[in-house]
C-alpha cells in the first residue's frame, strides 16, 4: 500500500535518526521509500524544510510542495491551508513553509476522530515520507523505539483531497534518497 507517513520527534537529531532508520528499512526491503524530507517547527511556530543548497527557485518549489503536503497530512481541510501557506511563505523565503497543521486540526475537531492527523508542536521535528509498505509494523516498531510518533495517510486518500491536480506533485518535492545535512551526520 502506498502511504504518506509523518513521524514526529521531540528534537531534530532524533528526526535524522528516524530518517536514517527509514532508509535502513528500505535497504532491508521491509518497505520501499520513494521520498523523504525533514521539517522543523521553531519556537515562533514557523515551519522549515531542510533542503540541499540549491537554486533558489528549487528551494522555493520544495517549500511550496512540502507545505502543501503538510496540509494534506493534517487532513482534508488542511489541504488548502497548507498549499496557500506553503506558496505564500515558501515563495518569499525559500525552504520555509507556513502550514499550520495543528491550527487546522483545532478548527476541525469534529473530524479528528476519523482522520489521521499530523500535529507538529513548537520545537518538534518530523520526517515526512512517501512509502510503499505491505504492513505497517516495520515502520511503527522502529520509530517507536526511537521515540517517534507515526501518522499515516493512504496516498489514495490524499489524492481525494488533492490541492494540486497532479498525483506526482507531492512526491516530487521529497528527496528520493537519504539526504542528511552535514550538521546532522550520523
Amino acid at each position, binding site marked *: 500500500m502506498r502511504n504518506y507517513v509523518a513521524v514526529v520527534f521531540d528534537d531534530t537529531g532524533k528526526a535524522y535518526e528516524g530518517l536514517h532508520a527509514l532508509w535502513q528499512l528500505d*535497504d532491508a526491503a521491509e518497505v520501499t521509500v520513494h521520498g523523504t524530507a525533514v521539517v522543523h517547527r521553531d519556537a515562533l511556530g514557523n515551519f522549515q524544510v531542510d533542503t540541499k543548497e540549491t537554486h533558489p527557485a528549487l528551494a522555493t518549489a520544495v517549500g511550496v510542495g512540502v507545505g502543501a503536503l503538510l496540509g494534506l497530512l493534517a487532513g482534508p481541510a488542511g489541504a488548502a491551508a497548507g498549499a496557500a501557506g506553503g506558496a505564500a511563505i515558501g515563495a518569499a523565503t525559500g525552504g520555509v513553509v507556513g502550514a499550520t497543521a495543528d491550527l487546522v486540526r483545532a478548527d476541525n475537531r469534529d473530524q479528528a476522530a476519523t482522520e489521521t492527523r499530523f500535529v507538529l508542536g513548537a520545537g518538534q521535528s518530523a520526517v515526512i515520507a512517501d512509502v510503499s509498505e505491505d504492513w505497517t509494523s516495520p515502520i511503527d516498531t522502529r520509530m517507536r523505539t526511537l521515540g517517534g510518533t507515526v501518522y499515516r495517510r493512504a496516498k489514495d486518500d490524499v489524492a481525494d483531497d488533492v490541492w494540486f491536480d497532479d498525483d*506526482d506533485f507531492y512526491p516530487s518535492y521529497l528527496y528520493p534518497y537519504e539526504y542528511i545535512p552535514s550538521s546532522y551526520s550520523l
Partner: protein
Amino acid sequence: MGKIETNVKDALDHIRAATQELHGAISDAAAKRGGATKADLEALAQKAKAVTESAKGSISTQRDAAKKHLADGVTHLEATQKHVAESLKSSGQSFQTSVQKALADARASAQKISEAVAAKRSAASK
C-alpha cells in the same frame, strides 16, 4: 555515513541507486556557485547515458508492474540525457532551464524506478 547491508541487491536495486545518484549529482551541479562547468556536465551526460543503458537492458528481465514502471523510468532517463546534452550547448537562461528540466526528469526517473522496486518487492512477498 555507512549503510548496513542487510540483503543481497539485485539489478533493479542497483539501477535505482544509480538513478538516485544521478539526481543527486544534477542537483549538486545546479547548486554550484558560478554554475556547473563543462566538465561537470560532460560527467553528468556520461552518467545519465550509463544509467539509461543499464535500465533499458533490465526491462526485459522484469515482470508486470515492475516492468511498466521501469519502462516509464527509462523514458524519463532518456529525457534527462536530452536535457543534459542541451545544457552543454546552451548558456544563460536556456542553460538554467535545461538543467532544471534535467533535474525534474531525473527525479521522475528515480520515482518510477523506486515504484518498480516496490512492485517487485510486493510481488516477492506474496
